[in-house]
């Protein structure tokens, strides 16, 4: 099977003259300012974030107590569905307002490099929104690809990996937890200070998010966040698939870090699906994920349940060695990822600053340290926190990550033309291709849309286009035929014919009853 991959990024946002209490509405208006082709509304019926992969459903998700600070302002905001203002774009992506953050969810991709391109495309799309919103209001809007405000508030960057239902949940948790706790040594975006457990601004830690995890596994995402999220929403046939929803990662401006983070995680997941186990259990994973992030020695030692001492690098090497044994030679992208993973682990052990052009936390640390030393600043100087924030700005003229790129200091893995194409067009080898095609060709005929299906209108009612059976790929011939459709009826007919050929039911006439 192909492995569907996706990234969701909630962006930090500031608007001139507005405070945090205004961000629900400001983020909504920013999303609504998107000037490109799109369809709406989002179809929420198939979704229920309260379903837990451990086989039950919670009554409600835990709310953040931080919301109580904004109760009065929130009461004046539009209803939640209006606030969200979902847009599905012609590249198959979803753009919406998630609780005061503009969120870009990439279309489903079948390769890591496609995913990196679509993640980067999200930044371009949001900058288009910023330009339009600034034109409307005359007020400056800034967006940040980060995960915390340095005052104890966090927002997420989530990864999605289509996974096999037949693998027991307990095996997934046991097999992946050591990997997820330790991958921050290359996937962390870096941050000055600690925001929980006795706040401090005197250290630089690997991860933006590590401070915010209090549970090993849970269905919650807003508060009492877990390292391993158990939300059970496959957005595909639930009898066959799970969706591994990874919420413990950072937003990575670095393309290389994004590629390695996702590529290594997909391989670790494949190993566990095939029955492999790392053969170790980390003692106190919640404490360990924080300790590793804050370790100023960069030795990243940890303790196993068996009482042994090992390092985060060695834990990663366990996964890499097995992935190398099983997957080397599979395809050029896998070979590149294996080599990149190996090189990074070696450099982390020998000299982390060799990674200054690839990993966010190293690039940021180096930049800040050089500035701090030159200016004789303390780590808790307000300027240092402001530079930390500016690293994440997606403004090409202001953001420090982009300054490094312009100075030739950051390695990029997708070209600018590829990113521009991804902002306009969906991946051609996943079900996102059909979704994007419908948005581009027949936006007025879309009654509702979500990851797994569309409801399409024609002269005789509404018809279901079920994308679930295409989770494992779209036959090229089907896509070619559908792309020539001149009407919704034509498109549905083409899909039905293609489905009959493949014995895959994806389109059927039906009243829309939900």
């Amino acid at each position: 099977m192909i492995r569907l991959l996706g990234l969701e990024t909630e962006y930090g946002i500031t608007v001139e003259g507005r405070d945090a209490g205004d961000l629900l509405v400001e983020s909504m208006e920013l999303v609504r300012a998107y000037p490109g082709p799109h369809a709406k509304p989002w179809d929420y019926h198939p979704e229920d974030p309260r379903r837990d992969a451990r086989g039950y459903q919670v009554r409600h998700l835990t709310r953040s107590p931080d919301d109580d600070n904004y109760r009065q302002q929130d009461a004046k905001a539009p209803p939640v569905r209006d606030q969200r203002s979902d847009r599905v774009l012609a590249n198959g992506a979803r753009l919406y307002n998630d609780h005061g953050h503009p969120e870009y969810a990439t279309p489903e991709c079948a390769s890591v490099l496609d995913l990196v391109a679509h993640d980067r495309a999200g930044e371009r799309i949001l900058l288009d929104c910023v330009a339009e919103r600034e034109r409307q209001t005359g007020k400056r809007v800034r967006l940040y690809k980060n995960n915390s405000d340095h005052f104890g508030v966090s927002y997420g960057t989530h990864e999605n990996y289509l996974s096999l239902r037949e693998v027991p949940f307990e095996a997934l948790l046991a097999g992946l937890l050591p990997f997820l706790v330790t991958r921050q040594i290359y996937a962390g975006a870096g941050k000055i200070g600690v925001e929980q457990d006795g706040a401090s601004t005197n250290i630089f830690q690997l991860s933006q998010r590590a401070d915010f995890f209090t549970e090993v596994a849970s269905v919650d995402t807003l508060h009492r966040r877990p390292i391993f999220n158990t939300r059970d929403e496959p957005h595909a046939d639930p009898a066959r698939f799970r969706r591994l929803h990874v919420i413990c990662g950072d937003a990575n401006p670095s393309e290389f870090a994004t590629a390695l983070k996702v590529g290594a995680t997909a391989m670790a997941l494949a190993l566990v699906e095939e029955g492999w186990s790392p053969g170790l259990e980390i003692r106190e994973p919640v404490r360990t994920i924080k300790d590793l992030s804050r370790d100023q020695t960069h030795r990243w030692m940890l303790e196993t349940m068996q009482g042994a001492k090992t390092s985060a690098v060695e834990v990663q090497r366990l996964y890499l060695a097995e992935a190398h044994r099983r997957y080397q030679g599979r395809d050029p992208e896998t070979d590149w990822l294996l080599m990149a993973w190996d090189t990074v682990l070696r450099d982390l052990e020998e000299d982390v600053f060799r990674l200054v052009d690839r990993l966010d936390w190293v690039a940021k640390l180096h930049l800040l340290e050089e500035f701090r030393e030159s200016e004789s600043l303390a780590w808790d100087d307000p300027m240092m926190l402001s530079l930390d924030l500016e690293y994440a700005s997606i403004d090409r003229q202001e953001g420090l990550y982009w300054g490094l790129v312009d100075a030739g200091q950051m390695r990029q893995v997708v070209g600018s033309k590829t990113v521009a194409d991804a902002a306009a067009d969906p991946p051609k080898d996943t079900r996102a291709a059909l979704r994007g095609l419908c948005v581009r060709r027949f936006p007025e005929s879309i009654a509702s849309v979500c990851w797994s299906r569309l409801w399409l209108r024609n002269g005789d009612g509404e018809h279901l286009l079920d994308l679930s059976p295409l989770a494992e790929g779209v036959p090229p011939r089907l896509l070619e035929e559908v792309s020539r459709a001149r009407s919704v009826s034509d498109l549905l007919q083409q899909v039905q014919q293609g489905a009959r050929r493949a014995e895959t039911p994806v389109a059927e006439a039906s009243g829309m009853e939900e």
Partner: protein
Amino acid sequence: MHATALKGMNLERERMPLPADPVRRGPGDEGPKDPGVRRPNTKDLLERMRRVDPEQAKRYRQRSGE
């Protein structure tokens, strides 16, 4: 404030051989920017850092997300 020249700003470090280029190039794609290809322009970067508002992080407050 913070206008002192950044002496000793050493952004160029010894580089180990990197994994082979993974970039897929389409027609007209300029491809990756290899850090070793052109001389780094760190002067612009320093100017960019100096222009950062030292107080912006104090004002940066967000809503709690997922």
